[in-house]
């Protein structure tokens, strides 16, 4: 934890500096007759982020915050495995949305999670993995008319559109 605390503070400080730099693309001072410029607000807020990071670093040196005193691992083997399998799974899911569209990606993601991470039976897995995209389709595409991307599976949906619209 102790090392993670200072590394995070450092990374966040870099982010703050980048945000400050990015804000200077617009006027950060007072423009006569127009009030504060467009960069004024984000610049000083990013400066506030930077000051907070310095403060966190000072607390780290003084060993004041709980994470800066802790010898525990920031991500133990369980946490790391979980992040890779679950976080990685969700990342793959979103990437698949570009290719298979939302409904195909939901099917694949639910099979991956429920069958391979959750170790549930195939019938339960398939019931949920097939039922969820159908309900989602009826709710979003049909009822709310929010058309979710279909990727390369678009042709499969054409008869459905004909049926509903």
């Amino acid at each position, binding site marked *: 934890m102790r090392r993670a605390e200072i590394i*995070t503070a450092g990374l966040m400080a870099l982010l703050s500096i980048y945000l400050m730099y990015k804000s200077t693309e617009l006027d950060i001072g007072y423009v006569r007759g127009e009030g504060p410029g467009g960069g004024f*607000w984000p610049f000083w*807020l990013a400066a506030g982020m930077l000051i907070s990071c310095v403060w966190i670093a000072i607390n780290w040196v003084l060993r004041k*915050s709980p994470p800066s005193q802790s010898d525990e691992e920031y991500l133990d083997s369980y946490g790391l495995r979980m992040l890779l399998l*679950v976080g990685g799974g969700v990342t793959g899911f979103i990437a698949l949305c570009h290719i298979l569209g939302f409904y195909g990606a939901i099917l694949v993601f639910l099979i991956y999670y429920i069958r391979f991470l*959750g170790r549930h039976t195939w019938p339960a897995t398939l019931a949920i993995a097939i039922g969820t995209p159908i309900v*989602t389709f009826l709710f979003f595409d049909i009822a709310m008319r929010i058309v979710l991307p279909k990727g390369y599976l678009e042709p499969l949906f054409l008869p459905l559109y004909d049926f509903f619209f």
Partner: protein
Amino acid sequence: MEVLGLLMDGVFIALDPLNILLMLVGVALGLFIGAMPGLGSVNGVAILLPATFLVPPASAMIFLAAIYYGAMYGGAISSITLGIPGASTAVATTFDGRPLALKGRADLALVTAAIASFVGGSVANILFTLFAPPLASVALDFGDPEIFALMLLAFATFVGLGGDDIPKTLFSIFFGLVMAAVGLDIMTGEPRLIFGDITGFMHGINFLVLAIGIYGIGEMLWTIDTTRGNLTMTEAVLSIDRILQSCKESMRSWKGTAIGSFLGFFVGILPAAGATPGSLMAYGVTKMVSKNPKEFGKGHVGGVAAPEAANNSASTGAMLPMLTLGIPGSPTTAILLGGMVIWGLQPGPLLFQTQTEFVWGLIGSFYISNLFALLVNLAFIPLFIWMLKMPFTILAPMIFVLSVVGGYAATQDMHDVWLMLIFGVGAYLLRKLDYPVAPAVLAIVLGPIAEPKLRQSLLFSNGDPMIFLTRPIAGPITVIAIILILLPLLKLIRDKFKASKAESQA
């Protein structure tokens, strides 16, 4: 008595068949969301907000408020039967609810929780109805400096009363505000903070992208990491007879219910406090004034009633500043406020004049939802307990799916879905290091409102920041905000002073 007439009109609007249906569904969903460990009202409201674009704004708001209420009831179910709080707002309910369940009196605990929640909600509704119209009419005179000062006060409460690490709280607030500034500058229309010239940033970062990222994806990762899949359940024996008998027994806890109802409301109004500290405080006070405080923690009904009354009361309390001033009193109401902006409603005191039907319909729905929540809760307790057996490995992927689809539906741009994932994983990693996430959500909602107020005020005063101190209403508010920000510093100095005094005496 004008208020009574308006309230009757509101109840009438809330009794529209569509609204009744939405309240019933909302309350039931809320109970489920509240009962599920890892999901609370804020998660439910954030993830389901995109689903409400189907119905008119007033009905959408009534639906989301019903979820909010239901979740406050639902949290108790898992606190009592699983021994782990279903939502952070029900932490204090585990202290006495779990021992009661282990003694075989889960039914008494569940019924007491339901009744106390109902009383807490009802008291808060009455207080709300009395306070809201006068507060809104006072706030009508507020200009830009006053509203900015109020926002400053809202953030100051996180620093002074939030109880989290101060620089980390400040970081969270500033981060949310900067994210809100991405997109086109509201006043000049110039593009601002367009990272890597990616066009997706041109339309700004919708608050839902951050809220669903944090409360959908981040929360699931956090729950999987912290619970590691170990849950044990106590069965509750329920029958009509036992429920009636429990009703009688739970009347003995009236003192806890009363304390929770009033304390919860006023704690709920403060943006940084809300239902969780409100219920903990109510538990503490009830224990303090009790004749036999030693029974607390071993299964005292008062220890269940006080926090449950308080968390329901606080959720209504949080609505008060949200509707009258446009300042949310909790993360959940922050998301509701963001929703109102999406629906084209201008939050703030003017709502009471321009959108009377919306406001009073919503207030009317508070009363009815509260009653529905009690009935649905008592009728379906066994069903909710059965649903709690749903393995987390099925619930979690469904939440991920809902988050991704909801994140897309909000803006219909894949760019925002990726951004949501980054925020979700980032929130999980930062939360492990004690960074509070709620202030960032409040900040991204308030940011687009706060910035023009600040710039208008400074333009008005020719760049003199003293405008926030010299105006008659803005002045005192700013002073209180500054005191709150300095509060932790003053405490530190006092402790140092005491320590040195103790040393010199020794």
